[in-house]
């Protein structure tokens, strides 16, 4: 595939970089990135990867846009309230760069669809807002052998961590399992300063571009924590955990787990007494 004059102009600032060049730009145009969650993290990731000329972006999200999302989810605008996030996202991406092929899935990522969806992409981005999904993505990327760029945000803090299955530490190497339900507040409960989603999402997008271009050093075996109040990054060195239940030599996790369902089942429902 040859670039048109317009495309050469569009991507000229990339092509000027020796680390990218025309060859790298072609790699980007052939790359497929799967973004799980079209919200706070998914917004900057999708916008920057689209602007960068990544050929295919897959977006999965089952939610509709809520007014309270607009403080940080920059893919969505005021007229998008109550519209499916993936529809709103697709429009913005195509308006920014019609070269991009956008695949949308108005659905939740579950143990049933995760492996099939992930298998269709080169890099996966975690932009979800709950632990069951974060563990599901980590496990699915391990089983599917796809690089994953993990992201997490809460209040004024954010975290990025790149995982290359079987080569670098996975999320479970550090965090064995989700915290007990209700123990860790969500952004909905505790709040989130909108810009942190932008900072963390932009780093996630950077990691994805580096992986596609095979340049620089990926954020593997080190976790990057950011605090907006101090404007400090903390890099935590880590390594593969020989006791990891997923990627260690004696795995006990051999299939995908839907934690949410388990948690729901454990919760006492109305009319049922729990002693």
């Amino acid at each position, binding site marked *: 595939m040859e670039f048109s004059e317009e495309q050469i102009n569009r991507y000229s600032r990339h092509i000027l970089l020796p680390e990218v060049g025309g060859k790298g730009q072609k790699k980007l145009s052939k790359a497929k990135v799967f973004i799980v969650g079209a919200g706070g993290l998914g917004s900057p990731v999708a916008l920057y990867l689209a602007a960068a000329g990544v050929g295919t972006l897959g977006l999965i999200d089952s939610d509709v846009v809520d007014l309270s999302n607009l403080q940080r989810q920059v893919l969505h605008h005021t007229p998008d309230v109550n519209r499916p996030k993936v529809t709103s996202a697709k429009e913005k991406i195509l308006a920014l760069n019609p070269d991009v092929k956008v695949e949308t899935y108005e659905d939740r990522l579950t143990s049933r669809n995760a492996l099939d969806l992930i298998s269709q992409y080169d890099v996966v981005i975690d932009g979800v807002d709950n632990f069951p999904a974060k563990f599901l993505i980590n496990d699915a990327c391990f089983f599917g052998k796809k690089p994953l760029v993990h992201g997490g945000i809460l209040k004024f*803090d954010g975290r990025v961590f790149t995982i290359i299955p079987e080569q670098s530490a996975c999320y479970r*190497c550090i965090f064995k399992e989700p915290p007990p339900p209700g123990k860790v507040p969500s952004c909905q409960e505790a709040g989130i300063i909108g810009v942190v989603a932008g900072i963390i999402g932009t780093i996630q997008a950077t990691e994805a571009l580096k992986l596609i271009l095979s340049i620089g050093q990926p954020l593997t075996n080190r976790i990057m924590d950011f605090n907006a109040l101090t404007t400090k990054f903390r890099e935590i060195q880590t390594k593969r955990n020989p006791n990891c239940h997923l990627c260690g030599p004696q795995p006990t996790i051999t299939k995908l787990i839907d934690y949410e369902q388990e948690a729901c089942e454990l919760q006492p429902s109305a009319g049922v007494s729990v002693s």
Partner: protein
Amino acid sequence: MQISINGKAETIEATTVLDVLTVKDIDPQLVAVELNTEVVEREQMPTTHVKEGDKLEFLFFMGGGE
């Protein structure tokens, strides 16, 4: 005893990783702990000793994204 906690030198009276968490008033269920870059399993926190110059990192759960 002086140890490094999250990159900061701190003087603390503690024998085990769990002691450090108790002194810092941190619920062990809410953090992952690394001692000199090795992950300390939660069950081993009460029996894993800390000594002068050790480097401890606390990684709190961060579940947001939307």
